[in-house]
């Protein structure tokens, strides 16, 4: 795999819409050609080379291309959007919509990710080593179908509406989540090692949510169906006792969503 490095030349004020930063777009291009790719900054279209030092080389195809972003890309949006193969490593944090609509390949964020990471993702792996913002793997505003496939791993915590409208794939959170985790979920798996605040699984119709820690305010439309000891989903293992619920019956009598809550942390449920 060939490596291409983007190093920041200057501090970015107005955020960049950098959906060109993908192995698919970069593959087969020289550093100079990549410097000349345009990104939107506010109302202006500006060459990528204005903001980044471009070094190294790309592979002939996306599969053979690694893009390494050196520095904090918190003001660079849409990195890796719709990428289908190859690899991106962001050594700092990533801006909004990192990996949005991603179809394949791997994207690693060593720092934190801003909101909408992995929005409507279809395949591949998005690994966020720090924390993530709102709407991870979520449907776009107004849409009812979010992530369809692939896997998002967040080592830290995420905020609101993680996995909103999710149809398939997996979102694995090492820390905790805030409000409305798995809202409108139709399929797929959301597994959270820590706790959640409120609105977990509201309006879900299918799919599975696991919250190992404390759920502060439990959603009213779920019914307890029993307890299970130790959960496994493929190679994923979650130890301990879980209370199993189905719902959300607030939206449909035939809802097929499954919600596991860690028994030890949720004695009152």
């Amino acid at each position, binding site marked *: 795999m060939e490596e291409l490095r983007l190093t920041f030349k200057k501090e970015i004020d107005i955020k960049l819409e950098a959906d060109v930063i993908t192995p698919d777009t970069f593959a087969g291009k020289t550093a100079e050609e990549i410097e000349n790719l345009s990104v939107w900054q506010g109302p202006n279209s500006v060459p990528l080379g204005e903001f980044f030092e471009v070094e190294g080389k790309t592979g002939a195809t996306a599969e053979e291309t690694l893009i390494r972003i050196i520095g904090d890309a918190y003001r660079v949006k849409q990195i890796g959007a719709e990428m289908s193969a190859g690899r991106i490593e962001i050594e700092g944090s990533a801006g909004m919509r990192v990996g949005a609509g991603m179809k394949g390949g791997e994207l690693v964020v060593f720092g934190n990710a801003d909101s909408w990471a992995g929005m409507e993702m279809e395949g591949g792996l998005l690994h966020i080593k720090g924390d993530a913002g709102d709407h991870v793997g979520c449907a776009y505003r*107004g849409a009812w179908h979010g992530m369809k496939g692939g896997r998002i791993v967040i080592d830290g915590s995420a905020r609101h509406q993680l996995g909103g409208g999710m149809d398939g794939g997996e979102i694995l959170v090492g820390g905790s989540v805030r409000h409305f985790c798995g809202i409108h979920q139709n399929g797929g798996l959301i597994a959270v090692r820590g706790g959640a605040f409120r609105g977990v699984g509201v309006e879900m119709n299918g799919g599975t949510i696991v919250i190992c820690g404390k759920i502060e305010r439990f959603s009213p439309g779920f019914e307890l169906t029993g307890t299970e000891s130790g959960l496994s989903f493929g190679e994923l293992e979650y130890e301990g006792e879980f209370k199993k619920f189905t719902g959300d019956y607030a939206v449909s009598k035939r809802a097929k969503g499954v919600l596991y809550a860690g028994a030890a942390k949720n004695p009152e449920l």
Partner: protein
Amino acid sequence: MTGTIVIKNGHVFDPLNELNGDVLDIFIRDGKVVRELSPADMKAAKVIDARGMTVMPGGVDSHSHVAGAKVNAGRQMRPEDHYKTNTLKTDLTHSGSGYTVPSVYKQGYDYAAMGYTTVFEAAVPPLEARHTHEEMRATPLLDMGGYLVLGNNWFLMRYLKEGDFEKAAAYVAWMMKTHKTYGIKCVNPAGVENWGWGKNINNLDQANIHFEMTPREMIKGLTEVNEMLGMPMPLHLHANNLGHPGCCEITRESLKIPAPVRARQKIDVEWAETKIDPSRDRSVYLTHLMFNSFAGTSWRDCESGVKGIADYINSTDHVVIDSGCTPFGEATVMTGDGPAIHDLYTLTGNKWSNTDIELECGSGVIPFTYLKSNPVHSLQWAMGLETLLLIKDPWKTIMTTDSPNGGPFTKYPEVMTWIMSEAYRKQTFGECHKWANDRTELGGVNRELSLYDLAILTRANPAKTIGMAHRKGSLGVGADGDVTVYDLDPQTLNPDNYEELLRGFRQAAYTVKGGEIVAKAGEIVAVPEKRTYYSEVHVEAAREKEMLADVKEWFRYYTIGFANYPTPEKYLENPTPIQVNQES
């Protein structure tokens, strides 16, 4: 010289002049079709060489939801409809976004790039006329007009109940002028009023709440008023019980109501030269027939009821329909039929909106996706095509998708290709649910429409039906210089090669508007001014005065003052009134 052009050597399809692929040159001078150009004009004229191409009058869409409060409600409630479909601004054109409910600019450009030059808004609630005109004015390139929703109007229900047709006619005349609208639209007659009380109407002789009016009385009354006034277009009917299994019965019965009423179009206009009589001969124009043609008793046993309605339409001469085809994919359903939207919400659980328009009407919006895997959606696809293929006389049919209800107008090329190519229908049968074949007659239909037929369904007939054939829908001398040149060679055209048809229809080689090339292979190259048409209907001053006394009395029930009610002409670009019912 702008507006002067020669379109040379093309195969011309102009049904109103019985031109069926004849190779000839079309001359346009100062925006109008002329017999020939003087040598001096020839020197200044632009020339399009259309050798081996198909030349038709500019496309006319007689039923599309393109402007006004409910289209805008669709835009507002569907950000997801916009974020993946957008176009950049250029030196000439605005930016835009939206797939099923595009922004006004994008809408105009997209229509023009497909070869359309005239589009009429299907439903203007009177109170929203100003908003509708603001959007029509902002929609580039298209000549437009709008139909006023009057099927549940308090004043008309009252007058028609009292049998006071003179005052009802005076009211319609005044409303057309006041709101700068073009014709009478009648949506779920008498039923939308009931929806204000959480109810609907499901048979033609059920009286509604308070007004005690039945759908039959509304349809009969409005048809008679329409012809008393000599309106340019027939009563534009969206029948009751729309979208319910079994609704085909009420639709067929509704179409019988206007049968005794003779069409009488009394408009004072300069007529372009045509071989076929371009004046209107129908007394009812039923819209989106597909949605009104379900047979059966539930969504489990429903099937196509198009055949029965088509048989009736084939046996009579007073009906014209548009199809309301559903070409699969994303749609935004929007209608003045509030209860129909609520029914779709209970079916889908999607986000939805409903609005009550005070004394006048109602409306609703809901996003919808037509899936090939879904049995009912597949049935609807086949039924839409049946409406255009089972009705024998193309002069009784108009191709639409009830955009964006069945799908956006940008899907017209698919619909055009399905009706022209059995091979394309077979290909789609193979991809969609078997109900499309099992529960309709479409599989047994081998009719393939010709380019001539297509020119009737998308140009000549919509123009003739709505009373615009005096200047639209033909290339006769005196007609507007609106021309579509498709890169399709009629001499080598093979309907089995449907990819070729799709390619040709998706992007006109040239769209000419008022003698000026506005789009070339999908790119907008000029944005000349447009016109907005409305009916200026004349009635006796004494009648109008009597009627206005009633209107002013009841205006206390409105949330706005009487003086703020009208839409002034300044809201229209190049307001072009059509004089109706003028004493000669």
